[in-house]
């Protein structure tokens, strides 16, 4: 083995070890010690065998950002993802009393209240009923709060907008279950309640429940992960994540909203006129460039500007990209199919001339809603507003190519 090859191989091993931690380091080092004939050149020796569960390449290490706090969040690494689908193990987390361990054989969902009969469904019952699969985003309505209140140059797409994830949800339409209990015509709302120790509760308009709400038990082809509501959760396309009650155990048909803690003291939007908007369920049109973004360094010449756009009101109609601080905009190419209330990948080919500038994206949805500038957002909602932060995200590119989050634009 030539010296250069050995050096680059050692660098590779060090990189893999840093990415995957101690256990892997041991394996890689012992593999090196054997110095098999094809070592360092995978085309000269057979690889490893099949496995029961696939692992990521040792060179890839996308990770959420757990805080260790039971009532807290862990964000999706948007900068590590391409396309539109979030892998199940990278879907963001937001819990209010930790993640409960629920035995699927003991799981049950009780539906009662203003209905002809109260009914109980086991997980097997839910799986026997007709199902639907739909690709949608799930976003916490607090997404973007840190980038609004305390922007910092080092914020990555994960730090800015990591409380959104997108994938294929499978479950029973809630309308099927409400037909089984025969909801009374006087019912107007459905109170949804979780089986975690917070027993998180939210009131959902009956109209939404009968429209496209589902009791989801799978995501991206496999059962929900515990952090995302295993074994079953409410899923409401386009609605703020908090309403999509995880670990769902009870639905009560009622004639008025419950005014639960999370629909009064939280998840309401104080406005500059001294009122607070309540039941602001739908997520506004929004986008973020995920590449290039902090903390990357770009080189002069051609590159692809790429990101995601989404709206709780329907399809993304257009995404505009500006590379000159918002003076001129160019329509980005949208990855087909553009799905309703789903992350939409946009791309824009750009030749950077090496001069310092800022780049940003602006989503327009099918209702004509346009993502506002930070200044317009602040003027309308106020500096102290608490949720639904859909202002335009701006990245600054310095003349040396360093990309940082621009919080003053």
């Amino acid at each position: 083995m030539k010296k250069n090859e050995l050096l680059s191989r050692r660098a590779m091993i060090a990189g893999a070890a840093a990415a995957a931690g101690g256990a892997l380091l041991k394996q890689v080092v012992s593999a090196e010690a054997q110095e098999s004939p094809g070592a360092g050149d995978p085309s000269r020796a057979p690889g490893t065998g099949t496995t029961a569960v696939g692992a990521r390449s040792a060179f890839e290490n996308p990770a959420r950002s757990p805080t260790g706090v039971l009532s807290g969040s862990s964000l999706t690494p948007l900068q590590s993802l391409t396309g539109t689908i979030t892998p199940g193990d990278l879907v963001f987390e937001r819990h209010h009393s930790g993640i409960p361990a629920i035995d699927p054989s003991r799981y049950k969902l009780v539906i009662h209240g203003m209905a002809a009969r109260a009914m109980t469904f086991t997980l097997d019952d839910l799986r026997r009923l007709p199902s639907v699969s739909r690709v949608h985003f799930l976003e916490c309505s607090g997404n973007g709060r840190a980038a609004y209140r305390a922007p910092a140059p080092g914020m990555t797409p994960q730090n800015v907008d990591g409380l959104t994830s997108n994938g294929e949800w499978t479950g029973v339409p809630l309308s099927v279950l409400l037909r089984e209990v025969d909801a009374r015509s006087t019912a107007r709302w459905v109170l949804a309640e979780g089986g975690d120790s917070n027993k998180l509760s939210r009131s959902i308009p009956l109209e939404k429940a009968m429209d496209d709400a589902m009791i989801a038990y799978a995501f991206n082809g496999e059962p929900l992960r515990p952090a995302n509501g295993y074994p079953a959760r409410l899923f409401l396309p386009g609605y703020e994540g908090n309403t999509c009650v995880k670990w769902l155990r009870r639905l009560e048909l009622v004639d008025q909203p419950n005014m639960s803690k999370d629909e009064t003291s939280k998840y309401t939007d104080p406005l500059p006129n001294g009122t607070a908007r309540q039941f602001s369920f739908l997520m506004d049109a929004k986008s973020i460039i995920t590449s290039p973004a902090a903390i990357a360094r770009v080189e002069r010449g051609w590159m692809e500007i790429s990101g995601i756009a989404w709206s709780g009101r329907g399809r993304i109609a257009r995404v505009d990209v500006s590379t000159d601080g918002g003076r001129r905009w160019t329509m980005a190419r949208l990855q087909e199919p553009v799905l309703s209330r789903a992350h939409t990948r946009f791309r824009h080919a750009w030749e950077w001339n090496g001069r310092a500038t800022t780049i940003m994206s602006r989503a327009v949805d099918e209702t004509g809603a346009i993502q506002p500038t930070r200044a317009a957002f602040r003027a309308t909602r106020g500096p102290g507003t608490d949720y639904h932060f859909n202002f335009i995200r701006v990245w600054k590119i310095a003349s040396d190519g360093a990309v940082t989050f621009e919080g003053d634009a």
Partner: protein
Amino acid sequence: MRRRAALSLLAPLAAALLVAACELRDAQDQGGGSPAGAGQAQQGGVGRPADVDPPTELPRSFAGIGRVARTEEVRAWDIDVNPAGVGLPPGRGTHAQGARVYAQHCAVCHGAAGEGVAPNPPLVGAGSGDFAFANDPKLTKTLGNYWPYATTLYDYVNRAMPFVAPGSLTAAEVYAVVAYLLAENGVIGKETVLDARSLAAVRMPARGRFVHDDRAGGAVFR
């Protein structure tokens, strides 16, 4: 004449394209909310042979799946309390009793005087009576200045607190700690005895501040 013939030849093609476009749109709409709709989207442009039936209509009821809930299982989980006081149990409590409950179960996370211990929120403080939260991110929302319904406080304490042992307080203890917190926030007097009736009658200072969502999509940002 020739031109017309060409058009008539093109017409079926145009119709086929139109059908394809509609089906694509249907597929993009992800088949709506109904399983039957999802099935229809899969047929594509192949057509249906005579020995193949269209997707079955869903029955009115999937009788046999799920069972009638037992009264006691509904009662065990039906813990919510609404603004009219529906769901409030028998029992009563006062500020003085609540002070003891608070010191024993709540102070460790929320502070001796309800001032909050980060990241746990403060519970007491009646500042910002002018509801200027949108204009000043430093203002603190509390029971006294932001919560619109007193019943919510009972509901939440009962379902989720104390954090490490939710559901461990008796109804009397919950009424008492609610009385303590409402009085400390100046919403009720320290002599007030809280029970199902008096709690539902409490009017919170922020009650009239909440409005329904007026965003409607479109070009106007609200």
